[in-house]
């Protein structure tokens, strides 16, 4: 593959900034949904940070290989897993949106766009029926 392609640059940026992007998204999620802290406490917040890092781990190859469906498959799997642990689809959706926001703040616009198209594929995979969950 072409190493200077925007997908490769975006994937490298995600990898290099994974921790700070995950922290930004987690901060924003907890600011946005303060009830999460009441419900899950500090341990829950740590887990959330870990989950978002894991999500970025799965975002990276999908971006790198320009394969949004790969990320969509992961999001479907993640949503099933989290719903079985009483985390709602609404929280998954919000976390993906906030990862996008962090990426738009931190990465060059062309890089952020290719990342966003993978995130959108993930959001689209959580169909309307699941969003009620």
């Amino acid at each position: 593959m072409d190493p200077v392609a925007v997908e490769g640059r975006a994937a490298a940026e995600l990898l290099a900034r994974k921790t700070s992007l995950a922290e930004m998204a987690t901060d924003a999620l907890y600011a946005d949904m303060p009830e999460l802290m009441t419900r899950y406490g500090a341990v829950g917040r740590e887990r959330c940070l870990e989950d978002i890092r894991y999500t970025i781990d799965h975002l990276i190859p999908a971006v790198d290989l320009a394969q949004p469906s790969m990320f969509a498959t992961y999001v479907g799997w993640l949503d099933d897993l989290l719903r079985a642990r009483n985390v709602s689809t609404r929280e998954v959706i919000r976390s993906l949106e906030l990862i996008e926001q962090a990426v738009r703040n931190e990465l060059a616009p062309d890089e952020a766009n290719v990342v966003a198209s993978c995130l959108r594929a993930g959001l689209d995979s959580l169909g309307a029926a699941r969003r009620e969950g």
Partner: protein
Amino acid sequence: MTVVTEANPAEHYATYLEAIRTGDRRRAFQIIDTARDAGLDLAGIYLGIFQPALREIGGLWQNNELTVAEEHLATAITEAAMARAYERAFTWSTDGSRTLIAACADVERHEVGLRMLCDLLDLEGWRTTYLGSTVPIESLAAMVLRLRPDVVALSVALSPHLPRLRAMVAAIRSTLGGEQPLIIVGGRPFLDDPSLAQRLGADLTARNAVDAVRLLGERVSRAR
């Protein structure tokens, strides 16, 4: 206990799943011994019992019905049951003239599929070298250079490890120069999209260990 006389893996699958789900190693071994005595071959046991049982165990963990510890125990029992079934199936009648080196790109332990491929190839007369997961890329390339296998098989269970698999392929390609081994890749991401194999620089992929054995049998001739 029901006496099973047909060589049908479905007869044994449910009881095997229950045994590993509850961490009952003795019972798991017993079921596999019974399946072999009923005439089931190693490929039938691997693809008809072990593989679907481990997939189901993964699903149960995903549904929060099993803990990580229970899932790891089920995998460990299955790895031991595989080794036991393999030992009982292996004979020295094979020639070992065709060779393969296998490694997992994952840093986690998702090694069972590749282990199945190696075992089934061994029974077909191949000489396989199984390295498992977390092999440093340079030492893998060095071993491929030294052993010059016909085939290198690489697997990846989770997509985050695809870049590592691509780096492994690239290292082998550049180290080996003119005389390249055939590189086969497998694992979940390739089931979802087989075209990924060529995009990552590999030669081929297969849906499961039995298909891989057949494909490699066609591609690599016995006399070299």
